[in-house]
């Protein structure tokens, strides 16, 4: 019998093996118009040649028809709250302080909704169907992403 010097040390139950992989993210050809536009503070969606639905942001197809979207459609930064929740969960390092409202926002003229924040209104005053308008970050901070919009706020006078 050989004696094992580590016998008394107990089992090894955890080891750290951190992984670092670098990726060069690519966004998709049909997303270019959206990304270039939002960098300039404008909103571009795309239309399905089949059912004529307008998607923003658009990833290249109308998922319902399974066909490539074609025309670029400029949209305003106003829309309605399609669905929402008030998020209370404290997530470490989250720069957004809970509670905050996450809503599905459907821009006027668009047929899909995307997730965004709602601001400048008490959380308990937010309602389904409420009309909202984007509040943009300062132009100097604009990059290629929906984060250029800080949040959406109720359109003045339209809510009770």
């Amino acid at each position, binding site marked *: 019998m050989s004696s094992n010097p580590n016998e008394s040390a107990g089992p090894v139950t955890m*080891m750290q*093996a951190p*992984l670092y*992989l*670098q*990726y*060069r*993210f*690519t*966004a*998709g*050809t*049909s*997303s*270019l118009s959206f990304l270039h536009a939002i960098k300039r503070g404008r909103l571009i969606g795309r239309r399905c040649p089949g059912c004529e639905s307008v998607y923003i942001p658009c*990833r*290249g*197809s109308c*998922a*319902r*028809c*399974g*066909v*490539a979207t074609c025309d670029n459609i400029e949209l305003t930064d106003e829309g309605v709250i399609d669905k929402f929740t008030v998020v209370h969960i404290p997530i470490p390092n989250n720069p957004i302080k809970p509670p905050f409202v996450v809503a599905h926002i459907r821009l006027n003229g668009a047929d899909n909704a995307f997730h965004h924040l709602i601001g400048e209104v008490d959380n308990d005053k937010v309602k389904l169907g409420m009309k909202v308008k984007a509040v943009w970050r300062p132009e100097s901070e604009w990059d290629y992403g929906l984060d250029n919009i800080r949040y959406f706020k109720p359109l003045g006078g339209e809510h009770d």
Partner: protein
Amino acid sequence: MTDIAIVSYAQAPMVRDAGCANEVELIMPVINEALQACGLARTDIDFVCSGSADYLQGAPFAFVAGVDALGAFPPIKESHVEMDAAWALYECYLKMLAGDIDSALIYGFGKSSPGNLPEVLSLQLDPYYLQPLCPDSVSLAALQARAMLDAGRCTREQMNEVVINSRRQAQKNPRAQLRKPVSQEQLQAEVDWIAPLKKSDCCPISDGASALVICRESQAREMGLPYARVVGMDHRIESHMLGFRDLTDSPSARNAAKSAGLHNNIEAAELHAPFSHQEILLRQSLGLSENVDINPSGGALAGNVMMAAGLDRIGSMAAAILRGDYKFGLAHATSGPCLQQNLVTILEAA
């Protein structure tokens, strides 16, 4: 023998970098091309199954985005393997045998250009004992090549011949990525990369997508479609521990081939060999004679789209049979380090 017919195969051009094309943009054209080629509508397809791997482009749920290319409303019967799409075809093959479905669309896609593929593939290894050492996929293949050379199972010249043949065959394949002819002299002059492998011994890194359509033979005949019949399919895996394996042999490929219906009349084989020595190894393990044409498409050395390359072997062999080039063919797909897992499909002309 089954009554399963491969009626259509489409492949996007294999390229080193598909630029900013996303999943949908990679997949949609090949799906449309495969369906148009056989005249089936999406609504005629009973089942869709795909193969892809999230780590290639570094974002989870790549296959979910893929569904956006399918026009999946009303909802469709659909599944996905985090494997090469050859295994997606296998899933459909079983469902056909079970009588669950009578047709299927299979697609695979891979976009490896955003990351460092040999490093990414090290994530396939035992996460406790191997992966933390980060052995990359090319280095592991080089170990196998060394073992082949040392055991006298192949020579440097034979490895060069594999590369020369791949490039020669690829000239006929407009979708191939590497098509420039090379000579024995050029290859001899090439410096080692990860010894004993030279760069030419290794498949290129490719972006792309492919799609394939199967249905019942009776339906193919009714529609007047040319088709290749699936005689059989099977796959086997070996130990993950390289030290437990004889790296110069592939019993898993051999057993899968036997079970899939390997016979002596095979005229051509599409072998998924991402490294030149692996083609020699597979030929030997499968007992393919000198008369068997290897990789009429150029094979993986001419372009290797991860998660589609195995399906490409099957599609390419089916296409060659449809062209009338061969009556009996074999197609092989692999997964994992040093040919750990192997799938074999035996095909024949209708």
